[in-house]
Structures are given as structure tokens and as C-alpha cells.
């Protein structure tokens, strides 16, 4: 089960993601992000405070969204990346490819 709540805060779209991001549910994350990008969003800030689990399929969705934003000079920032999700981002060195912040406010302020 994956829960996503999105809000447009002007400089960015903030997506609050909770639950489990596995091979089945991670598609919803990518679809939601691509939907915002198609509507012109350049900067996505993903609040992962409620994320309990992410598998390699979930990781690949983060990567795909970041790749889609790169040619548009956009960004995909991560907030509250903790626990096992943070560990898998570190193991795969994906953490080096994303701006990571302690809070949504800090991520939005950096834009």
C-alpha cells in the first residue's frame, strides 16, 4: 500500500509519500510524478517521512523521475529519508544523485 499526497507550493510540488514502495506500488509514484512534470512542474520535493519500505523497483522509479527532470533543469529533492529506505539509497549510492534535506521547508527554500 502506497499513499501519495501532492500539493503545489509555488516553487515546487511537494509529494508526501507513505507506506511501502515495492514492485507493484512504485508504479503509482512514477505515474504521479510524471503527471506533474507533464503539467509543467520542474521541481519535485518528496517527503519520505511515512515511507517504511522501498525495493530496487522503487529506487528505479526515483531514478527515472530524476532523469526525466534533468533535461528541463528541474530537480527531485528528498526529505526525511530515514531507516531502511535511507540504507538502500546509501548502499546503491543513489543518495549521491539526489539533493537530500532534513525538512520540506529546507528543500523548498533551496530552490
Amino acid at each position, binding site marked *: 500500500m502506497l499513499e501519495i499526497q501532492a500539493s503545489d507550493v509555488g516553487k515546487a510540488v511537494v509529494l508526501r509519500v507513505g507506506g511501502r514502495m515495492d514492485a*507493484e506500488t512504485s508504479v503509482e509514484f512514477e505515474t504521479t510524478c510524471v503527471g506533474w512534470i507533464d503539467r509543467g512542474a520542474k521541481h519535485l520535493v518528496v517527503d519520505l517521512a511515512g515511507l517504511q519500505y522501498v*525495493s530496487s*523497483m522503487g529506487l528505479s522509479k526515483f531514478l527515472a523521475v530524476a*532523469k526525466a527532470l534533468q533535461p528541463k533543469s528541474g530537480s527531485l529533492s528528498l526529505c526525511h529519508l530515514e531507516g531502511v529506505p535511507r540504507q*538502500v539509497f546509501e548502499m*546503491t*549510492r543513489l543518495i549521491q*544523485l539526489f539533493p537530500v534535506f532534513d525538512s520540506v521547508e529546507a528543500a523548498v527554500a533551496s530552490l
Partner: protein
Amino acid sequence: MDSDFRRITLPARTDQLGACFAFLNEGSKLAQFGIEDAARLDLLLEELFMNVARHAYPPGQEGSVEVGWAVPRPGELYVQISDWGSRFNPLDRSPHDFSKSLAERPLGGMGIFLIKTIADSLEYQWKEGRNLLSFRYLGAKGSDGAS
């Protein structure tokens, strides 16, 4: 270990992932693993299960996958996953290059790396016409793991 070995046979389809998680969760609880260790175990199983569901059988042919586990002692879980598809050892895949930039980084290839990193031992066998992959998990040091 055989007397305590529990197994389930499922259709090798991606929509069976939830059933697979539920079955493994029983083993995680019996091994007295906490939330973080249970999540790492799910990660291992998902990678292996999805590999079978997507690649073991030709398109259009529905096959089966057997998942089994045993708890040799609290804080240790032995997991085995097997299929009757074409012979394939996923551990033979070449290592992923994680040093690449965002633009050059491929989307795939992280699953097997995570398995090799997280599992405490991994073994592949081709036995009596089936792929048999097994691993042991002993809990992560410094986590909320085995008590």
C-alpha cells in the same frame, strides 16, 4: 531443519507478491526480527520473487514458484525460492557500476546488488530441473533486529 521447513507454492505472477510477503512475515516473526530486519527480508524476497515472476517462464506460460523458510534459531532465517523455468543463475550478473552520473546511470541492476549486500549467505543450485536459490539472514548489527 527439514521438519521445521515451511513452504508455499504460488503462481509465478507479479500480483502474488503480497501473498509472498505475508508468508515470509510469519518467518520474520518466528525469528523475532524487528521492523527494520523484516523490511530487509522483504527486500531480499521481492527481488528474487519478481525475478522469477518476470523472467523464469516464457511469455504466456504460467509457471509456479515455491517459497520456503525455516528458523534454525531466533535471529536467523533461512529462505529458499525455486522455480521450474529455464536454467538461470541471477547471481552471475555482472556487478552494477554505481559510480556513474544521473544521466548515465541505468535504471536496473540494483536488485541483485542489494541481495548480495544484505544476505548473509547466498547459494544457487540447478537441481532436478529447477532453479533453487537460498539465503540466510542473521539480522543487521545495530538495528532493531534479533534479540
